[in-house]
């Protein structure tokens, strides 16, 4: 919409004279207006309050007000043993429980110098990649929903149900798994379960192609996402972006390749990345990531060794004094667990590096100059989960 100078009779500063006494438009100005998106909102994922300053239809500034879901995770973890913290990590990013638990458990194992049996490593890899597909399907469904396409949401959740059932079979829970342990995993996976995963992987690429046709090829979607929320590589790196947000801006940085953990260095897969840095690029990167996850899963299931699923780990886990940092490539970006230990079995300080917390800072850079209607697409493309923003 062009910025045209509208001359209004009577009032200065663009004040519209009210024709009716006590009318609601008495204060209608053509200056900037502050709009509140949230905290209860169908399109901001979770309790995010975005205070948007708009000039007509254009966004001038966005200030995110977070903290509505702050549950004092870091303070509480100072009173818990390391094993007790594992369920809490599930609940920070509740849509990516496996990778979160992995971050904590990997940090503790690194600090202890613990050897994890190979079978456990493979099981963890399988779970991480299944979690990635699971999380990306949720993102895909809600992204379509935000843009007005109600149908892909249900299709994506149909496939996600299969994965949730797989998780439930092994861990007992559909969402809060509490599965990773220091030294391995809690339960073993059985051959029938592996077969079920393989069956899922057989029919899933066809479903993915269906979603491609439904949303990706759609000109309306392309028109609403191309060129929207663009950030270049320098901005992305300067703002600490990671995961799909960074990769869509032309920096193919993936912790699974650049700081490998578990058995990713033995897997053959590509890093999904794009150059544009707009919403469409992030969308395509995530879809491609799902395909790469399928590849990794097939390889991991193929090479699953026999052995222990839980190695020898001390019953009372006491980290030697010092500080440790473990990082994991979660579906949203780099999940980091920073532990400061004073030798006790509880952490002296635990800090959780949440990718969504960092990405939310990018919102003003992405949204400035765009229309109010683009805000929804932009927030959806960053894929934030308020649970990990606020902890």
């Amino acid at each position: 919409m062009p910025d045209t100078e509208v001359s209004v009779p009577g009032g200065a500063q663009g004040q519209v004279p009210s024709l009716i006494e006590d009318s609601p438009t008495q204060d209608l100005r053509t200056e900037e207006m502050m709009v509140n998106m949230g905290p209860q909102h169908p399109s901001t994922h979770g309790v995010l309050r975005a205070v948007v300053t708009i000039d007509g239809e254009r966004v001038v500034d966005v200030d995110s007000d977070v903290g509505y879901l702050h549950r004092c995770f870091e303070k509480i973890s100072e009173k818990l043993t390391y094993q007790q913290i594992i369920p809490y990590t599930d609940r920070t990013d509740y849509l990516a429980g496996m990778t979160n638990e992995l971050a904590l458990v990997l940090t503790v194992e690194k600090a202890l110098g613990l050897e994890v049996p190979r079978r456990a490593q493979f099981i963890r890899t399988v779970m991480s990649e299944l979690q990635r597909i699971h999380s990306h399907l949720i993102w895909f469904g809600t992204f379509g929903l935000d843009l007005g396409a109600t149908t892909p949401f249900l299709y994506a959740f149909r496939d996600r149900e299969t994965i949730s059932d797989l998780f439930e079979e092994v861990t007992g829970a559909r969402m809060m798994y509490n599965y990773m342990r220091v030294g391995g995993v809690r339960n073993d996976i059985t051959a029938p379960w592996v077969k079920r995963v393989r069956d899922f992987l057989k029919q899933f690429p066809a479903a993915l192609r269906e979603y491609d046709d439904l949303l990706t090829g759609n000109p309306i979607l392309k028109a609403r996402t191309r060129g929207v929320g663009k950030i270049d590589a320098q901005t992305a790196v300067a703002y600490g972006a990671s995961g799909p947000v960074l990769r869509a801006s032309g920096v193919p940085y993936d912790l699974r390749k650049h700081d490998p953990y578990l058995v990713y260095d033995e897997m053959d897969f590509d890093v999904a990345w794009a150059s544009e840095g707009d919403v469409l690029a992030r969308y395509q990167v995530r879809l491609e990531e799902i395909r790469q996850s399928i590849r990794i899963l097939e390889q991991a299931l193929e090479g699953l060794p026999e052995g222990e699923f839980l190695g020898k780990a001390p019953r009372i886990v006491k980290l030697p004094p010092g500080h440790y940092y473990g990082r994991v490539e979660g579906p949203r970006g780099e999940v980091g667990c920073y532990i400061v230990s004073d030798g006790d079995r509880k952490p002296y300080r635990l800090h959780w590096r949440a990718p969504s917390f960092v990405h939310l800072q990018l919102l003003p850079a992405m949204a400035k100059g765009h229309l109010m209607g683009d805000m929804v697409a932009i927030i959806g493309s960053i894929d934030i989960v308020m649970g990990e923003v606020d902890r």
Partner: protein
Amino acid sequence: MYFAEVSSLPLRLYQWTEQLFTNLGLPLWLLAILVATVKVALILGFILLNVLFLIWLERKLGGHIQNRLGPIYTGPFGLLQTLADALKVLVKEDIIPAAADRWVFMIAPLVAFVPAVMIWLVVPFAPGVQARDLNIGILYVAAMTSFSVPALLMAGWSSGNKWSLLGAFRAGAQLISYEVPLILATLAVVMLAGSLSLNDIIGAQQERAWFIVLQPLGFIVYLIAAIAELNRTPFDLPEAESELVAGFNTEYSGFRFAIFFLTEYASLLSSSAIAATLFLGGWSGPLLPPFVWFLLKTYVFVFIAMWIRFTLPRLRVDQLMNLSWKLLLPVALLNVLVTGVFVAL
């Protein structure tokens, strides 16, 4: 012969009643009022019944497209769901916001609903079965559909809420923009038929061919513009956008909201009926009774509108405007030009 019998039934019924009235010595203007009341009751009954069915159909169809079932609990196949919702809505508290402009707030739903019903004055259900065969039929229809604009603006303004106002502005801009290609598409049809009357248009289609064949471009323009006029996805931005909870609808609750909701579906029905009349030949068709043809063709458009709703994402405001002014309008003008040349030759 059977159809001739049925189609002349209203006329014979009227003549019989006329006879009865003169025999009983009752004035004929009373008869006219009686006839008008009967017509209104029939039409309202038809609309309400169909709207009830339409709402159910939307939910069921949407459900099945989305791989789920839709209403199944209330009544067989969930058919009584709409009735249950209507009853629920009727017993809700009537809230008028303190900052609202009372009278305008109360009148706005009616300004939306009444014209939506009044379109049905000229819709031909079957040969001879038409409330009134105005010789300016299609012009009247266009006028009635334009009433949605002031209704929307009144609703948004009187709500006393910034966001309702914004939603109303956007909706108003959208409606006005899409009226132009809509009317241009009907203009081409009128040129082919040589008359504004809906019956004549059906007659012209019976002579030549259904206008969807002769006017493919016009049909597509009409379809898109009509869906935009109805505020349905992919053009439902005024209702479903981020900062507008329900656009101009936000502050309405209870019965008033039900009126808006009913209006939306009644408009869907009337737009489909007009589209069926203009492009698919109305009630004409072999074998089946004309009224059945009319219903079938109307529901084809209803089905298409619902199908599109559950498949496509939403357009942004500026893209919406671009589509109307930069794409649909030139195409519609081109269509008129080509039709004009065709008619002249």
